[in-house]
């Protein structure tokens, strides 16, 4: 099959950036979207041009590196998948596909489709942990966790930190990302000691990083590759209130 790509090209963070059209003529439906870009890039290099830069690594939907807006959707069409899990069979012969980087004030573009998501690490630094010292901990089975709590904590912990929730949010809020971590640790007994400080510090850092606030559009949940539920945002709000009281 053949497709036409409209790809955002931007040399570096100071460049204005623009869309450039590319024809991908030998696309197999079995290719992943990133493999299709690989093929386009081989063509570009052979012509002496600079290949399209994009982040990727595991190519199985777990490392959170990949991420682009494809036809206006974070990680493209399909639910519950990251960009690397998208296959060309989701498109039709002759399609035009628009590919852009995540756009958010807190995620400056580095080059082409690559953005700087280190703001998410700084939110984690503000409190996304339990302060367990290496070695100074009790036996694993000394801390009982009811299975439903363990399962709910796992659902939240599945977040891959890709930033799709931010990219699709009209306010560029990182609320779902923050909520996932706050929720995981507030459910588990291990997270209780630092419960109040954690939520306050993480939210403060989120604000400092210029992410917007949450206005409950729930676009994040719809585009999240791991299906992180907005009920975790509910829990975050509850935690915040609890911390303030």
């Amino acid at each position: 099959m053949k497709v036409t790509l409209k790809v955002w090209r931007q040399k570096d963070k100071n460049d204005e950036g623009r869309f450039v059209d590319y024809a991908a003529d030998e696309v197999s439906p079995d290719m992943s979207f990133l493999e299709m870009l690989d093929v386009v890039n081989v063509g570009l290099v052979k012509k002496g041009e600079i290949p399209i830069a994009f982040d990727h690594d595991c190519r199985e939907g777990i490392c959170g590196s990949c991420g682009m807006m494809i036809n206006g959707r974070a990680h493209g069409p399909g639910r519950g998948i990251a960009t690397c899990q998208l296959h060309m069979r989701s498109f039709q012969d002759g399609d035009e596909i628009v590919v852009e980087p995540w756009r958010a004030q807190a995620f400056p573009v580095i080059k082409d489709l690559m953005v700087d998501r280190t703001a998410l690490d700084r939110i984690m630094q503000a409190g996304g942990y339990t302060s367990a010292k290496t070695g100074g901990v009790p036996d694993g089975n000394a801390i009982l966790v009811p299975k439903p709590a363990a399962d709910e904590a796992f659902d939240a912990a599945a977040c891959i930190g890709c930033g799709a929730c931010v990219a699709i949010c009209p306010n560029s809020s990182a609320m779902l990302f923050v909520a996932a971590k706050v929720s995981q640790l507030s459910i588990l007994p291990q997270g209780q000691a630092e419960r109040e400080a954690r939520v306050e510090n993480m939210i403060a850092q989120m604000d400092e990083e210029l992410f917007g606030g949450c206005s409950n559009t729930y676009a994040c949940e719809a585009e999240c590759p791991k299906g992180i539920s907005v009920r975790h945002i509910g829990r975050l709000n509850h935690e915040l209130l609890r911390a303030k009281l």
Partner: protein
Amino acid sequence: MALESKIPEGPLEQKWSKHKFKMKLVNPANRRKHTIIVVGTGLAGASVAASLGELGYHVLAFSYHESPRRAHSIAAQGGINAPKNYSNDGDSVYRLFYDTIKGGDYRAREANVYRLAEVSGCIIDQCVAQGVPFARDYAGYLDNRSFGGAQVARTFYARGQTGQQLLLGAYSALMRQTHAGSVKFFDRREMLDLVVIKGQARGIIARNLLNGKLESYTADAVVLATGGYGNVYYLSTNAKASNATAAWRAHKRGAFFGNPCYTQIHPTCIPVSGDHQSKLTLMSESLRNDGRIWVPKQKGDKRKPKDIPENERDYYLERLYPSFGNLVPRDVASRRAKDMCDEGFGVGASGLAVYLDFASAIQRLGKDIIEQRYGNLFDMYKQITAENPYEAPMRIYPAVHYTMGGLWVDYNLMSTIPGLFVLGEANFSDHGANRLGASALMQGLADGYFIAPYTISDYIASNKFEAVSADAPEFKEAENSITAVINKLLSVNGDKTVDEFHREFGKIMWDYVGMGRTKEGLKKALTVIPKIREEFWKHVKITGNAHDLNTELEKAQRVADFMELGELIAMDALQREESCGAHFREEYQTADGEALRNDKKFSYVAAWEYKGAKQKQVLHKESLKFEYAKPSQRSYK
């Protein structure tokens, strides 16, 4: 130079405690004065950086990723072992030790493996305290499952995402130390050389991938936790960026390379679908618990699997190994699949696949149970192949997965360069010739949380450190040599891309230095590899320059190193005239086609010393002694 493994004296079970007692300590007030560089922040690197930071050292951590959470460790699925004996099925430190030595086909050090088993229980405790959501039973206790190569249930898991959850735990500990100011994390930095001054590792040169600048960092000790080198083969289950450059460059600076030929092939991966294929996806080993592996009895049978009647199917593992059946170890399952395809029985468009069939399990247990057990794997398979494994059998084929080989280290995890420590998949230490499932995560975290923090302190306390500056001639020399390589790569301006070369090179490695190796094949590889390397330096095409983010240039340097390492793998495989674990030499097999070890001649670790670009590497041998786990022939009949 003689290899000193520094294995402590005394009975096996007391070696580590006695050694810990003998090791010197650094006064807490003095730790801050010592800078330690940690390269790599996967499981091994993040855990050691966080632990050293917590002890009070000044830690500089580096990764080519934007965040530690992106490391390849994130992709591990199945689980992590620990002999907690929570299942009350007779597990013990000794049993885990024994299983690991045997699984490694008697090619690992007893003392190291025993220590690994000994500290592994603490890892589970540590991770639980960090909030890792391990699977629990209804009473709220930790749940266990069983895994290949063991008869007890000792594997802890977090759904099919154990690596992710463990890495996020280590990452959160690292973020905590970053916040506290004891660790500084440098993202998107690729270490390109190790700097050795007066015989000690004293720093690194890293390239800032955003702007191409070379940056020099000094330290009193350097830790490499840079992962494995499976991507030598181009197609593997490793993440795309996983590479050997840090280890290889350290090797060129004097660190011996241990057992490079021990590369593990995983039997159940999704087969290649075409020339565009960029990597391979693993389907967890646990599928073999319920799936039956078969091929048609007739060569080249192109009928749909459901149209092939039972009596025209060959369930070859069940036929060849009546007692273990589909559950034979990884190496055996992989080799038999390859044999079947080589003989023309393979299925699918390429003929390079066998069926893994769940029809009888679904009939016996119902679709719901199978979905509960393997739902996420079935979805993943469907996502990639557009085929529904509930209705048609999966097609699977073996793929390169893990490298047991790596930089040689002594009992303290220190390489042959004083002050250079190597952790995780990057070292050669604990898995011998074959790694058992769920033991890589265990090793990375054992090294990082519970071994290296002590042994590095001992090194710091036992040595003197003259002040060094990043302007020292050794730093300048290293910087200049990196610049020369980069300039040379950029000036070739040939007609073939880095990926094209890598793919071609990987094919040679897979064909001649892959699953079944022969003297002839290896010799052939050793004549072809230098040629393709020469081609590479004459015809590679890289666009862009050295002062911008340039992904092609990054890849080119990694591939150049793979092409050198690949040659060493072939040399190592050639000298090891026996079959053991994952290293299978066709000439050395039992009448049943199993690996035939030669303990008399090859019960040693091969440690290779680099002697310069024009000279042959020199082989050193560290002989292995088995005082507790006596070598025997594996049998799975």
